[in-house]
């Protein structure tokens, strides 16, 4: 097994007195796409926030390219090449569509992604580049959120529930472009509640339950029974 690109080691996370993650161990290898599934409140977003530095941890609890990054601030983590498409899109409401994209690219990492390439991926955004991000439909906002993360030319990109609150047809079109995006040698973590969607794009799956990893395996080897047991804890 080659060295993992990113790993967590006994990762715990707390909100005040409340412990949200308990000893989470996951690995992502270069070029790999993994899925993290789990019910509401299982701790998926908390795990993403811990990896990206929005929640501070002990340094060695998260390692990236064998370097401890658990205690870095989110802006420092971003510079190492990790980007996130956050849950609920979280666009900057005072910025235009184009400015939202530009700000994603301003850390200046080199790579294939730049404004025109995002516009080729999502042509509608080029048409609407000058409007405030709040004027877009949900699906278009999700495109901006994805484009914004890509603009930093990440090596590892985290997608936190990109299908949340979107119409099925939009979800379908977004999942259709995912392989193109990830095909550029990026690694990806896809957080989903929709198990089928997650399994369709990811090679490996982690299932979370109440702050712990309850199941891990290759997408094509896990059975429905195993997954629902790990998902619902029945």
């Amino acid at each position, binding site marked *: 097994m080659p060295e993992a690109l990113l790993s967590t080691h006994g990762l715990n996370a707390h909100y005040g007195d409340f412990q949200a993650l308990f000893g989470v161990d996951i690995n992502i290898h270069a070029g790999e796409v993994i899925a993290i599934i789990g019910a509401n409140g299982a701790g998926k977003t908390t795990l993403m926030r811990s990896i990206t*530095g929005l929640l501070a941890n002990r340094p060695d609890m998260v390692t990236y390219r064998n370097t401890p990054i658990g205690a870095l601030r989110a802006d420092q983590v971003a510079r190492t090449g990790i980007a996130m498409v956050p849950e609920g899109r979280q666009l*900057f409401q005072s910025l235009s569509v184009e400015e939202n994209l530009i*700000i994603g690219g301003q850390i200046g990492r080199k790579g294939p992604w730049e404004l025109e390439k995002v516009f080729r991926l999502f042509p509608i955004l080029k048409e609407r580049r000058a409007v405030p991000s709040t004027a877009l439909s949900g699906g278009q906002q999700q495109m901006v959120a994805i484009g914004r993360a890509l603009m930093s030319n990440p090596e590892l990109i985290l997608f936190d529930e990109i299908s949340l609150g979107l119409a099925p047809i939009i979800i379908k079109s977004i999942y259709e472009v995912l392989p193109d995006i990830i095909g550029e040698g990026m690694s990806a973590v896809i957080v989903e509640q929709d198990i089928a969607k997650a399994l369709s794009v990811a090679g490996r799956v982690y299932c979370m339950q109440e702050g712990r990893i309850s199941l891990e395996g290759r997408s094509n080897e896990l059975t429905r029974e195993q997954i629902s047991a790990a998902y619902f804890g029945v």
Partner: protein
Amino acid sequence: MEWINAIVQGVLLGGLYALFAAGLSLIFGVMRLVNIAHGDFIVLAAFLALSTTSALGVNPLLTLVIVVPVMAVIGYVLQRGVLNQTLGDDILPPLLVTFGLSVIIQNGLLEIYSADPQKMNAGAIETASLALPGNLNVGVLPLVMFGVSVAVIAGLQWVFYRSALGRAFRAVSDKQDIAQLMGLNKAHVFGLAMALSLAVVGIAGVFLGIRTSFDPSIGPGRLIFGFEAVIIGGLGNLWGTMIGGIILGVSQNIGAQINPGWQLLAGHIAFLIVLAVKPRGLFPRID
């Protein structure tokens, strides 16, 4: 004629008030911080200019070259060293800390410069005036200062809406966490915002010290003028702040025209009237 003159002078004075207010408005917009020591920083800048002119023997207007960068550095260091630690969900700590700063600055200035009123002399330009049609005389210096105020507001507007720095300001103001994910260190961005705010305060302080006499105790009064200009104009709108400053200046001068003792009162009354009619100011941008 006297009335028109009072109004024209009021407009020019309003430019200075807009300078008092712009930095206040900027940092409130970026980090929702109300800097109670803002007026005292204006006075500090005026004393800094005073010391610079007497040390170097230059025209007080030239001290801008030194005062503005020094104030900007003070702003950055203050923000990173002190104020960032006070920001959070609770709005009380930054109020208390900047109130404390206000007291410290006033007492520090009193210790160094005494309570005697000071004034800087900018030389021949102070007495130069332009004769306008209709028997109107406008001083060149107030006119220049007004021009600078308009330019500063226009410059801030450009920075805020057109530059990469302004994009960072707006992003951090919108969503601090997500901005951090974009590689923006909010502690640094806030530092830059305070640096810009106090740079403008530097200009305001130099102009104040040339236009009128000043002493260590007048900071809170300047803070009030700045506040009133911001609120009249509407939060988060720099051109609104400019108009707020002008409304304040004109009201004060009209009040003084009626009765010299009514100058300040008239300004406060104008402020209250605007507040009563439009509680969020004339042109609000921030909800």
